[in-house]
């Protein structure tokens, strides 16, 4: 005969379940509860951003520093153009300071904090790999003593140091120096927040769109004529006159520092863009601009205009699927 354990009073079970749930929810790990960030700004403007944080702690841990990562375009030189303070009734007020690049991330497999952030969170859904994580830590440590630390990180960043109009998704992560980006039975010790597309206008440089897919991209995004550049035409972005082509070709004009223009517009192996991988509708060519355009040793290419063509050269696709060429400036910042 089966016997079942019976405890009088269902309420005891419910109470126990509630306590366990409460402990689980209250236990451990930093949380970003919200980010107040404007949607637009102009180049050179100092933008205020507030990151709201909540750190439930358990007893006998630390002292640890709060680690904060800020994902921004490299061209903004955020480490030099940002100040961050924190305000917290429990932790007190203070400054966030840059983490030295020689400091290794806890549980980061030998990487420093910015590299560990990039490995763990990538570039936050942005489409051009010209972003960086800038790592900060609190100027004082906190202990995990069972209390809940709430507070705000108050960021002041001067945007657009590269003078480029930009659309970008900014990113924010927090953890602490004793745990890093890990989870265990007690909880998850980090939190990430990527915001919607942020728009910077008023610049006189290039327009850089990290948010939306582009018909063509160049990697590395910043390069000179003595780099190898990889140009990719993405046929998935929209239907163009080249949709369905097996191969496409690059038709380009280089502008040199001595006022020359050099046109390479042929449909040969030299300009052929192959689908990589096969069937992906992404066509790619990697070349050394100095050699591709045949410049002399004293000539420097400062700019390149280009179209993507079919194998006859008669069908051309340009910037935004128009008849205007794509443009690329050779520069490092």
């Amino acid at each position: 005969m089966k016997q079942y354990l019976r405890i009088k009073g269902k309420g005891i079970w419910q109470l126990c379940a509630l306590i366990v749930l409460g402990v689980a929810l209250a236990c451990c790990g930093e949380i970003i509860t919200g980010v107040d960030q404007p949607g637009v700004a102009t180049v050179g403007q100092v933008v205020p951003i507030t990151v709201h944080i909540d750190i439930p702690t358990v007893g006998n841990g630390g002292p640890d520093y709060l680690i904060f990562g800020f994902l921004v375009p490299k061209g903004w030189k955020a480490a030099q153009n940002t100040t961050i303070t924190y305000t917290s009734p429990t932790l007190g007020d203070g400054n966030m300071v840059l983490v030295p690049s020689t400091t290794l991330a806890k549980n980061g497999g030998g990487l420093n904090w910015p590299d560990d952030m990039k490995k763990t969170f990538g570039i936050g859904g942005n489409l051009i790999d010209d972003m960086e994580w800038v790592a900060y830590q609190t100027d004082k440590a906190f202990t995990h003593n069972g209390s809940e630390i709430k507070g705000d990180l108050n960021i002041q960043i001067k945007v657009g140091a590269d003078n480029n109009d930009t659309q970008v998704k900014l990113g924010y992560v927090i953890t602490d120096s004793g745990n890093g980006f890990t989870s265990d039975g007690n909880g998850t010790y980090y939190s990430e927040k990527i915001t919607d597309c942020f728009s910077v206008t008023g610049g006189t440089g290039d327009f850089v769109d990290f948010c939306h897919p582009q018909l063509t991209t160049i990697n590395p995004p910043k390069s000179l004529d003595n780099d190898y550049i990889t140009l990719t035409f993405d046929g998935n972005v929209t239907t163009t006159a080249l949709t369905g082509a097996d191969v496409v070709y690059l038709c380009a004009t280089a502008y040199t520092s001595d006022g020359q223009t050099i046109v390479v517009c042929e449909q040969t192996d030299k300009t052929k863009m192959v689908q990589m991988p096969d069937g992906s509708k992404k066509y790619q060519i990697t070349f050394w601009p100095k050699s591709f355009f045949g410049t002399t040793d004293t000539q420097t290419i400062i700019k390149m205009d280009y179209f993507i063509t079919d194998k006859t050269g008669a069908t051309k696709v340009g910037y935004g699927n128009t008849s205007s060429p794509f443009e690329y400036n050779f520069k490092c910042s």
Partner: protein
Amino acid sequence: MLLLGTLFGSCKMEKVGPAAEAAKDISGNWKIIKATRNGADLTAIVDFSQFRLNFNQGKYTLVNKVPFLVGQNGTYALDDPKYPFKISFTAGTATPVATAFNFPIVNGARQLTLTFSPGCTNNTYVYVFQKSN
């Protein structure tokens, strides 16, 4: 006494000392067997097969050029002949350009690994060379 004399006399001390380190000889023709740009492999998508880097009696020659530490032929030097940490290239009268000298033995053959930035300083290239004989 005679026995003791024989006993000690029969043994000869052998002096064991460290063998002298040989000077690093990089002379010859080198070809690229692997190349990366910012960590991404370029070897399969760029044709490096025609490029040669020749070292001969303090001079280097570039054949079928690719982006490199230097763009012209010139002279090279190691900072130490036996224990080099750096190799420097001087193209004509230009300022010498130095980079770390890595010269490991891999699968029984010497490899020469050079790291440099020919364009933007943020773009880092690593070429791994092997003798092309």
